[in-house]
């Protein structure tokens, strides 16, 4: 679980350091996706940490306590459910990439979609997704390298 908190801290520190310079991808949801894949058979242990990470983020940055927490819980549950129902196969890295990127896209776009404004608006949101793409590619490479699947 330390991966989740490390990712949370990294995102928070980068958000402070790069605020107004570069948008920071949501590392927490990336770490959560990784954990949901690796624990897809028993993901219940993820919900409380996901809730806590989301709540702290909301208290620190969004001022809507619970909003990010809910999206993190739903992302973890959805990814774990989906992954647990997939049969082992060669296409899994591609599916891993798609699932993780989709989770990031939905979770990080939610504030923009809900409020239609924010730091830099649409262009910043697009830049954030582009940076997330690099991170998800790296995470997929790590997944392939580690050979980690829930069925093996």
């Amino acid at each position, binding site marked *: 679980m330390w991966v989740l908190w490390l990712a949370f801290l990294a995102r928070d*520190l980068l958000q402070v350091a790069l605020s107004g310079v570069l948008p920071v991808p949501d590392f927490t949801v990336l770490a959560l996706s990784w954990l949901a894949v690796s624990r897809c058979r028993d993901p219940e*242990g993820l919900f409380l940490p996901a*809730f806590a990470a989301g709540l702290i983020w909301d208290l620190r940055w969004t*001022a809507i*306590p619970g909003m990010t927490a809910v999206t993190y819980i739903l992302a973890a549950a959805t990814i774990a459910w989906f992954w647990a129902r997939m049969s082992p196969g060669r296409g899994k890295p591609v599916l891993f990439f798609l699932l993780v990127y989709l989770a990031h896209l939905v979770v990080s776009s939610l*504030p923009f979609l809900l409020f239609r404004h924010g730091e830099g608006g649409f262009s910043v949101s697009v830049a954030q997704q582009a940076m997330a793409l690099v991170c998800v590619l790296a995470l997929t490479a790590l997944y392939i390298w580690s050979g980690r699947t829930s069925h093996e």
Partner: protein
Amino acid sequence: MGRAGTRYWIFFLGTLFLGLILAAVSPGSLLSDKAMDLAGWVMKFPEWPARALRNAVMRTVDLAAGEKALRERIDRLEKENLSLRGLLQTTINFGTGPELREGHVTMRPPVSWWSEIRVDRGTKDGLRPGMGAIQDGALVGRVSRVEPNSSWIELLTSPSLYIPVVVEETRDLGVLNGEGNGNVWLLYIPAEKELRVGMGISTALVSEQLPPGIPIGKIVAAGDEIGGYRLYRLALTAELSRLYRVKIVTGGKP
């Protein structure tokens, strides 16, 4: 459903409902404000290296661009300008005189994007409700709530903030009010007065905490006439979409 399945649903639904209930009821509540201030204060410690790095990089960039001396000069002139405007336009006693205290914006909630920001200065730094906040010499809002280590500033674009202002060219008095969507209007100008696009707007004498004469913006368009008074749309001098640091005008009487 086995024990593992039950456990799954308890954790999933429990955390999900708790999150949804919090998201529905907590925004704007006093408890949530206190929790946000606490979270901001606690996170200040692990965030210190990032903040120090950011400040160091900004200082280096300023230095490399030869702007450090210029910025110091601007700071000095801003302070002097505030004092002179106060002396020129009013005879009130500002106590110790206006001082500027820089604060970093630590939160700008998306749900109230055009209404408020939080800065990392509070009562310990001498801030009080009503004090003005400026960016590059132009007013951005007023301090609305103060905690020991942080403060909330209501922005000029907030629909609940009304600031008495003066049209610099004609000395007509009016009231500035935001629409909550980024637009700002000048209210209560008699319809027979013909204000022109480009005329400057600055703070009028309101209290002993907000000095008169702080630039706010310019008239960009005339609006509707309502009850014998014409509305004027304003363009703010401050860039509210790039609000990362502000200076609080401290001093004056409580």
